[in-house]
């Protein structure tokens, strides 16, 4: 379980890190929390010749508020998300989900930016980012650009990031006051990826759904946004029948890969179940 030899770099500034990426190109990998990349290197699924460690670059971690937007440094750890007062107040969905990621030791190291940029549909943040209408700040040789989550996840381990770019920040609009939330995740054990998971953000007026966002984890080649189910619910009273019809639309877009966690039929059924659980919990948490 020893990685293939590589050269280690520990840039002290973002500019230096971008320059190194340009210099080493495809032979380089960025190291954030290291809890996806190092296991892959140990198994020799990944064999970079140059490892560029982002942990010594200042100002890449932290949570702040700017206008109606929450800004999270890409190197902010899951543990920092969990204990952030600001997130507990403004984005409880993210805190609830972070508590379900991996285990305590891994959450001290694992970062939100690494989780997103890895492009693994089994990671939890991609579906959350789709649900929250997040956007990502990518820094490259020609400066910064901002890419919405909806245009970022292109395939398994395949994102809109260029090889010479570094994710520096995640920007999330604060949901309206009274928004209900839930991340429902089915996993076999602590530390496992989801067999199926659903994120829901919900606004209601009386019994009527005035706005809803639904994201799905590990149910396709990328995280999914269940737009058809959202359209079916918006403007309608949230009756048991309406929820069931939406659950069918959620399941209709699932294309999970069969593995030890279950076959396609099981995982799709569990996607429906996680959605039902998430929307019912979100309803209870809505201020109407």
């Amino acid at each position, binding site marked *: *379980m020893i990685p293939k030899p590589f050269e280690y770099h520990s840039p002290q500034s973002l500019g230096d890190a971008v320059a190194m990426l340009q210099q080493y190109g495809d032979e380089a990998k960025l190291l954030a929390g290291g809890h996806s990349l190092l*296991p892959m290197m140990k198994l020799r699924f990944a064999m970079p010749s140059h490892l560029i460690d982002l942990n010594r670059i200042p100002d890449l971690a932290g949570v702040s508020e700017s206008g109606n937007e929450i800004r999270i440094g890409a190197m902010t750890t899951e543990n920092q998300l969990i204990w952030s007062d600001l997130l507990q107040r403004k984005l409880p969905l993210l805190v609830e989900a972070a508590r379900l990621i991996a285990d305590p*030791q891994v959450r001290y190291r694992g970062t939100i930016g690494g989780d997103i940029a890895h492009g693994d549909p089994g990671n939890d943040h991609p579906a959350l980012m789709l649900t929250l209408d997040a956007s990502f700040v990518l820094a490259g040789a020609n400066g910064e650009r901002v890419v919405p989550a909806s245009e970022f996840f292109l395939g398994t381990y395949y994102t809109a990031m260029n090889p010479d770019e570094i994710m520096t920040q995640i920007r999330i609009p604060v949901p309206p006051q009274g928004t209900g939330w839930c991340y429902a995740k089915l996993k076999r054990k602590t530390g496992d990826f989801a067999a199926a998971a659903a994120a829901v953000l919900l606004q209601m007026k009386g019994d009527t759904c005035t706005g809803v966002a639904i994201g799905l984890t590990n149910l396709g080649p990328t995280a999914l946004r269940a737009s058809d189910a959202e359209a079916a619910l918006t403007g309608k009273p949230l009756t048991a029948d309406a929820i069931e019809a939406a659950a069918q639309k959620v399941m209709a877009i699932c294309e999970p890969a069969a593995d030890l966690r279950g076959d396609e039929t099981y995982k799709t059924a569990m996607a429906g179940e996680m959605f039902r659980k998430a929307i019912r919990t979100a309803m209870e948490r809505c201020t109407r």
Partner: protein
Amino acid sequence: MSQTVKVSFKLNDRPVDVLVEPRELLIHTLREKLAHTGPHIGCETSHCGACTVDMNGASLKSCTILTVQCEGADILTIEGIAKNGELHALQEGFMQEHGLQCGFCTPGMITRAYRLLQEIPDPTEEEIRYWMAGNLCRCTGYQNIVKSIQYAARKLRGEPVETSHPLMGEKAAQSEMAG
């Protein structure tokens, strides 16, 4: 391509320098170069927690960090938990409450619980189980590990603890006489 690099950090309050290849994992440096064999290699895939150490105030699976990443770090292992020949309350708790059978997971358990009790000095049983979930034990069924941590939490908060362990009973009796 892969030359050795000098890395300096603090290990249980003592400065150490090591020469490592960049690909060397911290657990291997600790065990093979620094003779600290308390942290164990269980799974080597960051699942089991037997290799847990404390670094810069956070619990860490030392099989999933490179030694070169530890430059300037402050690292604590099970070897540094007892102070001046006195067992730490957690070590005492694991003796008293039978928090181990084979003992393989114990260094990781205690090192992780050490950080947990710094962050949450008065954890509920549910909190202990949640925040200890990164450490696996195949012997105890966890119940006695929970009790051991509760014992240590009480002692660290200055509350009375009941000791019936023969070794600790003697010590307790001595300190009673002295007091």
